């Protein structure tokens, strides 16, 4: 089975990757593709909250948002290092939900893992978030990892 793990550079997406690793059986997963999507027309095309601070700064200066996305993908991919399945790193460009779904179709994915960052009203009131859209239109089962309740310290 090919599993697509999406990352938007958030801590939550890293937790989602760890969540998958915590229960899934690595012998049943042949490949894992870590996918990041750059949003060219967004205010911040890709925000990497995962890499060490020095790396983030160097990325923005030398390689722009593409380097930031690459670093974030590497951090998430490192979760699965030595776990068994073959790990691929992929960076796409466009609208996140659309590109994640396209990647699932192209890779014939058996599962897609996304993080849902929102706790508050923004997710329910505003037009659907990436996680919601992936849930609605993905061609395969979707694992949505929701954040822990606010009361608990990270």
């Amino acid at each position, binding site marked *: 089975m090919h599993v697509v793990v999406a990352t938007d550079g958030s801590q939550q997406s890293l937790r989602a990757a760890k969540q998958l690793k915590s229960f899934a059986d690595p012998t049943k997963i042949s490949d894992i593709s870590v996918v990041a999507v750059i*949003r*060219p027309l967004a205010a911040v095309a890709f925000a990497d*909250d995962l890499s060490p601070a020095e790396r*983030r700064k160097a990325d*923005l200066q030398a390689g722009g948002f593409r380097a930031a996305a690459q670093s974030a993908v590497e951090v998430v991919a490192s979760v699965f290092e030595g776990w068994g399945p073959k790990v691929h790193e992929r*960076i*796409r460009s466009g*609208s996140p939900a659309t590109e994640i779904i396209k990647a699932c179709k192209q890779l014939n994915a058996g599962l897609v893992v996304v993080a849902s960052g929102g706790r508050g009203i923004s997710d329910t009131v505003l037009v659907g978030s*990436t996680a919601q859209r992936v849930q609605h239109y993905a061609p395969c089962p979707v694992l949505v990892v929701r954040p822990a309740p606010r009361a608990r310290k990270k």
Partner: protein
Amino acid sequence: MAETTTDPMTDEADDGGLRRSITGKQLFFYTLGDVLGSGIYVLIGLVAAAVGGAFWIAFAVGVSIAAITGTAYAELVTKYPQAAGAALYVNKAFGNRVLTFLITVCFLSASFAASGALADGFASYFATLWEGPPALLVTLLFILALSIINFIGITESVVINMLMAFIEIAGLVIVMVIGIWYIAEGDADFGVLVDFDTGDTNVPLAILAGVALSFFAMTGFENTANVAEETIDPHRSFPRSLIGGMVVAGTIYVLVSMAAALTVPTDKLAKSDAALLEVVKTGILPISNDFMTTLFSVIALIAITNTTLVAVVTQPRILYGMANEDVVPGVFAKIHSSRRSPWVGLLFSAGVVGALLVVGTFAPEVEGTSLIERLSLVTVLFLLFIYTLVIISCLKLRGQDEDDRTFRASTPLLFVGLVGNVAIFGWSVYDDPTSLIWCAGLVAVGVVLFLVEYFLGTRSRPADVERGVPTTESRGDL
């Protein structure tokens, strides 16, 4: 959605993993939409007032200088295709941190002032549809609405961007058709196209004044550097799309100014807040006047919105970059957990633009200068300064980081552009020194942010970490 095509440069190693999404065609319409929306709907009346019936010349000269500056951008983008723009080029050329900071702040300020001017233009056209609410309220709500739209992320759709560019072009095509219709009816007096009504000033200076005023209409192309990184085959498509977009925009401008000059008396254009609407109101086309007026107003509103959106996207992006460099407080690097938008930067930017509009509305007018004229002039001053430095950087960086695919701008033209930018800058300052106070005010915002970071940012910084090295704490988002 965006057509995803395989990028031959980076794709071999990874089976379809690295993809870029902006095609040359999309970049062309992005440039065109961004440039067209900014000025002609807003400023044509002011330019007509300065020059007289021959004001199309001002647009022709202005867009030529802008297009030459565009070639410098195209050359630098093909060398350094990161989504960074002027600050990066100046940093590469001079390596001076103060200058780089200044350029970044100028770019941010230009963007603030441009948003203000555009919001005011929006209010002018809005008033033709519904005169009820006061202009200030309309402008403030407009900025607020765009910030919310930006937060949600609707602006990211390439399709919507293309659609808006088409609508903008359609509006200007309507004006051109009216001009052609008028000529076909045989009523046109072509004498007006060489008529200079410049008062006491001589003709070249009047043209320069017109260029300075119209130059706001040429700006916006610098924002295309934002998407350079995500352009497919940037070495080929970027110069072509950027310069192509500028040339098409210039041609449209000249034709539209001619059409406006032929169909509407110059003094009437000069007095109007929504000057292009006067062309439509002449009733030359055999279509209901009311319908055409409403349609055109809506088109103008969409055009202005499109360009303002790009500015509203740019501001938090600059602040985000600066926060990561640790020259403004780390809170501007704060990204909303699920929408992935830099919401602090967005809010702050909307606040600054709102403050500009409020101050501009209640500040005493100088020699009858309107708010829109003031803010567009401030934008132009900042951008001319940036353009000048970008051209110098382009010349200075010759011979560095070049390969076969680098686009090379014509050196003599770059010098012409340099002289042009400096001349317009000089005239604008001479003509309206008050603008410098506004510029200083906007730069002060950037300096204050720096000082806040400098004095208060240290508290959260571990003792062994030097300034300029962002720490997790100073980012404030983890």
